[in-house]
Each structure stands twice: as structure tokens, then as C-alpha cells.
């Protein structure tokens, strides 16, 4: 039986994660024209900060209550991840101060580290263009995935299981509710920021660079700086999405594994699909597309794929339910992208003009000139 409240909470969390991620991609690819196919690596920064760094620091602070020294606590989070973090998770609900501090710490540090990685990635982004850059970022993301997967001090000793997610929202009493509220707040803040940035001089400069680099340069704008800034800010938001995802034990399935946070289908290609569907450089379009597609497709499939597959009665024709469930998401993703590209390549809400003044004022001026 499907519990509607739980379903709503989880879907809201998914919408928030995907919106932040798509908006961050929209800033890089839609507004500035940097084809970032390495979005998953910036997302993974958030996951690593929560699962590794923040958990370690929380363990070090709570070490006396766990009966180990601080130095041991730092190491035990990795070496005996499952048992030790389970013990930590029992203590955390009684420590609201520490939990809140760690949530804020994760947000700030992940955004800084994400921005730093974006700054590193802007080195090729300044020197390469178009498809070369896309390939470069995609391989960088895959390379980092391999690095993280097999480095025990980053992702733990078993790559498939990963790190147990810390229970930083345990103190609220109703963690699923409050994680989704937190995710929603983060998504709304992102929306407000992106919306105001779209119309700001900075946003217009980003799009000017995308449309015509040479004329922007001729007008005295530093194109390299613009592209670098887009990579830094955009990547910081992608890391934020990673934090929002990893803080919710229900969306992560209680463990943060390299396999899940570096997954290029979930965290690079789905955001691309959502961005194209919504309309590149159209913040509202991306928000709308994310809400609709995640609420109707991604969320239900990710959460209840076995049940959905059973609805189709595929066993009758000899198809395994588990395989069908896996195939379903890929078919939907592929068909959705192709339909958008063929039928509506500019998205459901094409890129809006920027309203630098209030709409009434612009109409008034226009009327004055018509008269």
C-alpha cells in the first residue's frame, strides 16, 4: 500500500534536488553556453562532504559519548563505517546543536568545494569550445568516479555499499518531513536567486558572452572571467544539490555510494533532459519541467518501479519485472529527449527576454514611442 504522505515527501525532495541541479546546469549551459557533461562530479562533491567530511567531524565532536578518542573517531567513520555511523546516528537525535551546525557546515563547505572544482574545470572551459569541452568534462567526471570509487579514504572500502548517511535531521522527530521541507526551502532560494540573476546585469552579460563572444569582448567585457564565474557559481549550486540529496536518508537509501552519486545518467543526463525540455536559459521553464517530469515520472519510477512494472503485466509476455523496471526509466528518458528535440527544440517555455524595468513601465515607454 502506498503511503501518500511518504510519497509526497519523497517526491518533493526529488523535485528539489533535480531543480537545483538543473538550474545550476542551466546557468552553465543555458546561460553561458558551456556544455557541461560533467555535472555528476560537482553533484558528488556534495555527497562526499555529507557522507565523509561532515560525518567525520560530527563523530570527532561526539567522540567522548561514543567512547572513543577523537583521533580514532576520525578513522572509524571509514574503517568501521556501518557499525560506527549507526552508533553515531543513535546519538545525533539528542544533539540538535551539533546536527544543525553540521547541516550548515555541509552546505557551506560543499558549495565552496564545488565552486573550487568548478574553478579547476574552468581551466579547460576557457581553452576549449563546444563538443571538445563536453567530452573533456564527461571524461573528467568518469575519471573522478573511478578515483573516488577505489579510494578507501573517500568512499569507504566497499564501493557498492558506500558510506552510511548521517542522520542529521533526527532531532526534529519527523526526519522525512523536515528533510523535504529543508529541500524545498533550498530549491526556493535557488529559484529566487536564479530568477533575479537572469535579469541582473551579470545574467545579461553571461548571455551576451554565450551569444557573441567577440562583440562582448569588443565592448570591454572579460570573457574568460565570465566563463570562469559561470563555472564556479553553477558548480557550487550543483554541490548544493548533492548535499540536499545526501542529507535525506530516504532518497539516498541511507547510504552514499560512489555508484549512486557519480551516476552520469541520474545526475548529468537527466538534468540535461530537464533543461532542454524546460527551455535553455529559461529558469521558469526549467522549474516547470522539473516539477512535472519528476512528480509524474522520475519520482514514482525511482520509488515504486517494481510496482509500476507489475502494473504493465509484463510477466505475461515473459519479461522479468526487475529488468522491465530498469528499462522503463531509460526508455522514458530517451524518448522524452528525442521528442523534445524533434518537436519543441526550444523547450516548453522558451528563453524569456530580460525585464530590466517593470513590465508596465516598458509598455508605457513603448506607447510613448508609438504615439
Amino acid at each position, binding site marked *: 500500500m502506498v503511503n501518500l504522505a511518504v510519497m509526497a515527501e519523497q517526491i518533493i525532495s526529488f523535485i528539489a534536488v533535480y531543480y537545483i541541479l538543473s538550474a545550476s546546469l542551466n546557468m552553465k549551459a543555458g546561460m553561458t553556453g558551456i556544455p557541461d557533461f560533467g555535472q555528476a562530479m560537482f553533484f558528488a562533491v556534495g555527497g562526499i562532504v555529507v557522507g565523509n567530511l561532515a560525518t567525520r567531524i560530527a563523530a570527532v565532536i561526539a567522540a567522548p559519548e561514543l567512547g572513543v578518542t577523537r583521533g580514532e573517531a576520525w578513522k572509524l567513520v571509514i574503517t568501521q563505517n556501518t557499525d560506527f555511523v549507526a552508533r553515531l546516528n543513535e546519538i545525533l537525535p539528542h544533539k540538535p546543536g551539533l546536527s544543525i551546525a553540521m547541516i550548515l557546515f555541509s552546505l557551506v563547505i560543499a558549495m565552496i568545494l564545488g565552486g573550487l572544482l568548478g574553478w579547476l574545470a574552468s581551466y579547460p572551459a576557457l581553452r576549449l569550445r563546444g563538443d571538445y569541452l563536453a567530452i573533456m568534462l564527461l571524461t573528467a567526471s*568518469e575519471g573522478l568516479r573511478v578515483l573516488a570509487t577505489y579510494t578507501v579514504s573517500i568512499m569507504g572500502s566497499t564501493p557498492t555499499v558506500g558510506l552510511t548517511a548521517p542522520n542529521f535531521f533526527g532531532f526534529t522527530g519527523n526526519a522525512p518531513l523536515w528533510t523535504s521541507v529543508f529541500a524545498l526551502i533550498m530549491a526556493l532560494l535557488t529559484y529566487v536567486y536564479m530568477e533575479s540573476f537572469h535579469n541582473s546585469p551579470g545574467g545579461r552579460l553571461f548571455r551576451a558572452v554565450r551569444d557573441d563572444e567577440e562583440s562582448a569582448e569588443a565592448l570591454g567585457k572579460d570573457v574568460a572571467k565570465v566563463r570562469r564565474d559561470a563555472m564556479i557559481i553553477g558548480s557550487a549550486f550543483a554541490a548544493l544539490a548533492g548535499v540536499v540529496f545526501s542529507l535525506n536518508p530516504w532518497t539516498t537509501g541511507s547510504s552514499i555510494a560512489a555508484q549512486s552519486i557519480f551516476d552520469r545518467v541520474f545526475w548529468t543526463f537527466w538534468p540535461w533532459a530537464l533543461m532542454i525540455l524546460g527551455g535553455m536559459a529559461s529558469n521558469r521553464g526549467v522549474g516547470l519541467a522539473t516539477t512535472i517530469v519528476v512528480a509524474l515520472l522520475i519520482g514514482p519510477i525511482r520509488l515504486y518501479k517494481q510496482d509500476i512494472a507489475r502494473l504493465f503485466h509484463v510477466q505475461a509476455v515473459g519479461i522479468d519485472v526487475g529488468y522491465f523496471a530498469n528499462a522503463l526509466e531509460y526508455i522514458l528518458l530517451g524518448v522524452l529527449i528525442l521528442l523534445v528535440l524533434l518537436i519543441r527544440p526550444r523547450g516548453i517555455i522558451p528563453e524569456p527576454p530580460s525585464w530590466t524595468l517593470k513590465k508596465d513601465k516598458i509598455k508605457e515607454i513603448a506607447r510613448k514611442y508609438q504615439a
Partner: protein
Amino acid sequence: MNVNILMGTLVYGSVLALLSLGITLIYMTTKVFNFAHPRLSLFGAYLAITAMAAYITGKGIQPDLTVHEGIIPYRLAYPASVYIIGAVVAIVGGIIAAMVEYYLILKPLLDRGSDYLQLMIATLAYDFILMAVLFLYNTHVKIVSLLNKINVQSTSVDFSSYDLYIMKGYLTIPGDALYSTLIVLIITAAIYILLFKTTLGVKMRASIENPPLAEVLGINVRRIYALSWIISGATAGLAGFFIMMRPSVAGLKPISATSPADEIVVSAFAGSIVGGVNSIFGSLAGGMLIGFIEVYVTFFIGIATGLGAITKYSRVISMFAVGLFLLFAPQGLAGLYKKYLAPPPAAPELGEEEHEEGEG
């Protein structure tokens, strides 16, 4: 010298060379990096396994494991026809998958004047659809049981019946290493002849270097592009056929809907880029080189430093190779060859034009 590792490297390098060749060919003609390329080879491999198993059961062929003595002593488990059928079906499967991609997805988008980004994303979408098809197919026809039918000992097909014994007992060249390397050499020669010795090759080079001019001169550029998709699909199918033979090399998992395409995609693109994305022969060399470094060199670094675990990180090398070549030698091996090794009065050849997007 560890012969076994070297032979594995040869198979893996050949597979990468074949995949890189396809990626490069598509990039040169259609100007898109085909992300679905490794999946095309999986599609070929799936069809090949099915066909081989059906042929064996249909004809009731029993494996024969006795060693035959001769000038070249060999073990003949299955008649050659089984393997030939497998290879042909793999090639046909690759071609079918590539043709579907070109005619149903990329051509409509090209006609609409889509930009490189839209084309690239469309290839990704096709990749997912193909993966889903393989998922569904795998449930109908259990690939593992088919493999068991073909080869009783393992979960992969192998060519061991076609091993080449040079001085029996001292040096054995496994069949898969022998044939994959031979195939790469044959394809290299065939493409050289096609491009430089036939009229069709002249048309092809003209369509690549200057499509509008070629069109004015009465060449059907779209047909030439379709031809390049056929070659690309065929080589992808062959690569898939050889991946089946030795899935254990380079940490690849046994064949399934997701693997090894998901793991090999970075290495295949690395081969294409290291070769210089606008050079066909460069891509063959680049694929071989990447395969050699990933397997052979990391193996010896692992032995020398005592860190056996280093082989797990082999795919990071591909990432660095892509980065270094794109940033510092965007023309790849072909460009380096032209700069330092080629005889000065270079005859006009493929990929001569400067790539505008290489440096910003």
C-alpha cells in the same frame, strides 16, 4: 614478459581501436560525438551470441576438445562456421543499430539544422533506448544460458580452439588476440585502399573536407555519410564480437545491457581524441595506445611499485590522456606525426584542415 597480459592487451587494444575508428569516422562526417557507439557494439554482441547459440543447437553441434596435430597444432572446439556466423551477425547487428540511429534520429535533426549540442544529446537518448531494448531482450533470451551453451566452462565465448601454437608448449597466441589484431590490420589496410585508391574514397575525402563544394561537384554527400555510418556500425559490431571473447581484461564485467559499454565509453573516446579526432589512422593508433597503457603499463607499474591495486585506477589514465591531448595537442597523434615525423612535402591527406575549435 607476461604473455597472458600482453595477449589480453592486444584484444582490448584492438577493441578500442575499432571503437575509436567508428567514433572518429562519425565525427569527421556527421560532426557529432556518438555517445551511443559502445552500445552499438553490445547490440551486435547480443545478436551474435543468439545466432551462435541457435546455430549450435539447431545443427546439434557437439564441442570437440581434442587437440589436433599438424603443422600448426590446434584445438577445434567448434567448426569455424560457428564463429564466422557470430562475426557476421555481429557486424550486421552493428550496422542495423547504426543505420537506425542515423536515419531515424540524426538525419531528421540534421535536416532541421540542429546544433552540435542537440545532436550530441540525441545520441545519448538513443544510447538509453538501446540500453533499455537490451535490458528487455536479456529477459527474453537469457544471455548467460546462451553463453553456457556455447562454452561449457565459462560465461564467455572464447576462441581458444583457434589458438596458434608457435613451438608447441612454449608460445601460444590465443585465438582472440590473433584474430582481433589481424582484423585491425586488415581494416586499416582496407580503409587505406578505400580512401586513397578508389573513386569512392576520393568522394569520401571530398565530402569530409568541404561538403558544400563536394555537393556542387555532384557528390551525394548524405549517401557518403550513410556509408561512413555503415563502416562505423560494422566495426562497432566486430568490436562487440571480440569483447565477448575476453571480458575479464581491463576489469570489464561480463557482457550485459549496461556493461561493458558504460565502462569502455571513456577509453574509446580517449582513443579517438588521442589519435586526433580528425584522423582515421590516428584513431586506430590511439585506441591501441590507450589499450596498451591502460592494461599493460599499469600492470607493470603495479608490479614495480608493489601496489597491485593501481590497475583499478587504469581508466583515470584515459581521463588524463584526453585532458592533456585536448589542451596541449588537440590534433592528437596525427598532428604530432605531421609536425615531427612526416616527410615535408606532405601530400594532401585526410584531416589536413585546421580544427577551429581546438584552441580558443
